[in-house]
């Protein structure tokens, strides 16, 4: 790698376009959002203006975010995301594990099968789930054959959790697969040889040694779950609002942009917190990541 000073002309040619782009269409917009989060709607002639704002008036929006109503929604977003992440982990681990121990010729196909749904439009996949779970849907039809139902399966927390798991499971499989694949299988053999059962081997050797992959996967799934909008919107309806839906409302129906901006920043801070956690884990587990 060369020092940029050795060839500044090339350096700037390569560097300026993407940097300017990112500045103009990402950093500055975030700046707008940041300023907005500290602003209030202007009061004109004793009336709340629709489009005018008093900029940088203080923390009122953030304080409002800690209203029990919104705290409740944030808390719910966290636990729904946490539950969905945990379920993703539970399903993705055996999948990743199984692919690692499958015959070499099967591995690429199995991996492709896991990631392919991830490439299909999120909206379409969610729509497909709606068709399965709605009251006149396929699942209720099948249940009807054995004399059950129909049940109302959509528009509740369960539907949202299921949708999130369905949508983000591949995110979990990939980092897990990468670490399990790199794990030296003689550790597992040593554990079995020393008298550990398959279960003990899994809990005491495989899981601790693949912890870096688990942490990556958990963070990778938790972040988009926490910020998800579409899944709770379509599968949860009004009964299962998450923070993303509240933000959307502020910008669309409720037209309270300052408050929406504040909520957006809170969501971003939560995201950065999760990323920082992942970074800390990666530092700590350096020695273990064999």
């Amino acid at each position, binding site marked *: 790698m060369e020092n940029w000073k050795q060839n500044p002309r090339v350096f700037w040619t390569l560097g300026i376009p993407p940097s300017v782009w990112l500045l103009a269409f990402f950093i500055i917009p975030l700046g707008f959002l940041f300023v907005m989060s500290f602003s209030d709607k202007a009061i004109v002639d004793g009336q709340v203006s629709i489009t005018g704002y008093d900029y940088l008036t203080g923390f009122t929006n953030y304080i409002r975010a800690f209203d029990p109503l919104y705290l409740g929604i944030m808390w719910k977003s966290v636990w729904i995301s946490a539950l969905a992440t945990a379920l993703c982990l539970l399903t993705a681990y055996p999948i990743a594990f199984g692919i690692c121990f499958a015959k070499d010729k099967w591995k690429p196909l199995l991996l492709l099968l896991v990631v392919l749904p991830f490439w299909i439009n999120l909206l379409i996949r969610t729509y497909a789930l709606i068709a399965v779970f709605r009251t006149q849907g396929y699942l209720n039809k099948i249940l009807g054959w054995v004399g059950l139902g129909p049940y109302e399966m959509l528009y509740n927390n369960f539907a949202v959790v299921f949708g999130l798991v369905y949508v983000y499971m591949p995110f979990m499989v990939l980092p897990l697969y990468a670490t399990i694949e790199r794990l030296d299988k003689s*550790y597992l*053999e*040593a554990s079995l*040889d*020393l*008298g550990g059962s398959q279960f003990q081997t899994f809990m*005491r050797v495989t899981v*601790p040694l693949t912890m870096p992959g688990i942490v990556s996967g958990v963070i990778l799934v938790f972040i988009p779950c926490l910020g998800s909008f579409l899944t709770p919107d379509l599968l949860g309806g009004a009964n299962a609002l998450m923070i993303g839906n509240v933000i959307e409302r502020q910008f669309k129906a409720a037209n309270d942009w300052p408050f929406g901006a504040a909520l957006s920043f809170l969501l971003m801070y939560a995201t950065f917190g999760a990323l920082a956690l992942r970074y800390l884990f990666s530092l700590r587990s350096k*020695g273990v990541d064999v």
Partner: protein
Amino acid sequence: MSDAIVSIRNVTKAFPGGVTAVDNVSLDIAQNEFFALLGPSGCGKTTLRRMISGLETPTSGQIVIGGEDMAFTPPNKRPTNMVFQSYAVFPHMTVEQNVGYGLKVTGVATDEIRRRVGEALDMVKLTALAARKPDQMSGGQRQRVALARALVKRPKVLLLDEPLSALDAKLRDDMRMELTRLQETVGITFIIVTHDQDEALSMASRIAVMDKGAVQQVATPAELYEHPRSRFVADFIGKVNLIDARVHRQIGRKIDCELKGVGRMELASDGLVGGQVAVAVRPEKLKIAIAEPASAIRVQGRVRDVAYYGDTSHVVIEAADGLDLSVNVQNDTRLGGSGVERGQTVWVHWAPEDSIVLTE
């Protein structure tokens, strides 16, 4: 053998894809033995070891351990333990936890674990490092952890795969002695797997020599060296001069044969032979003489090469019919060295009883 602790009966292992790594092997390993599986790379010894420890199952055959057929018993249910070639010391546990692992998972009481781990660490002289993590230790130390971890389980059989291969020369000698000492103190059957004949010869009480998935010969080190049963074994263990010979007739327990480049003679041989055989003679059994010796087997040749090794010199002599003979000469005085020089014409001779007739 009634006191066999491990009895391998007609074991075959064919991998999917057509490699038969172990081909109809039968072996008995006695209680308290220091047994070695020796063979060149790819001969199937690791596969055999993995089947003994349960990490692989045979395609057919029986593996009887302690009187019970365990061919299909999972590894955690077998009274065997392993020292892995890569040591496989768990990186997320301290030395103490590593050594205690096998006891903990089988539900041994905490006090008992602490006591036995202490003893085991003592035995391999690692007490001072009990709280260390493996990544703060040298390869030799990690190997001791692996050893302690296996011994603490008091297995009936301890398996070691290439235990010395990753150590440097000095450490290797220490470890070799240490392993022999340990085996004597703990009284456990040791089975080591190695491709290094020095390792096997110096440590094992009995050796099975394997080639291409099959056992060629099972014998004590001295027997293997002095009475190899096949060309492969003679050639694989130590250095040897292999001389082609044609058998004319068989007279009782002797054969009348023509050694290529040497001449016609009678040699002792068990079993029936006919046609082509090979006669093996170890280089240190050959003698060099300047004047024609009286010995029954003698051949004249030219010194082609002399290599000086301090305690011995290796001399290569070119005889008739393209026959090359290697001779090891003890440099037992400070004056002479081998006493011959390149290009010199000399006689090589040896005692008939030092010739080994090989039919396979």
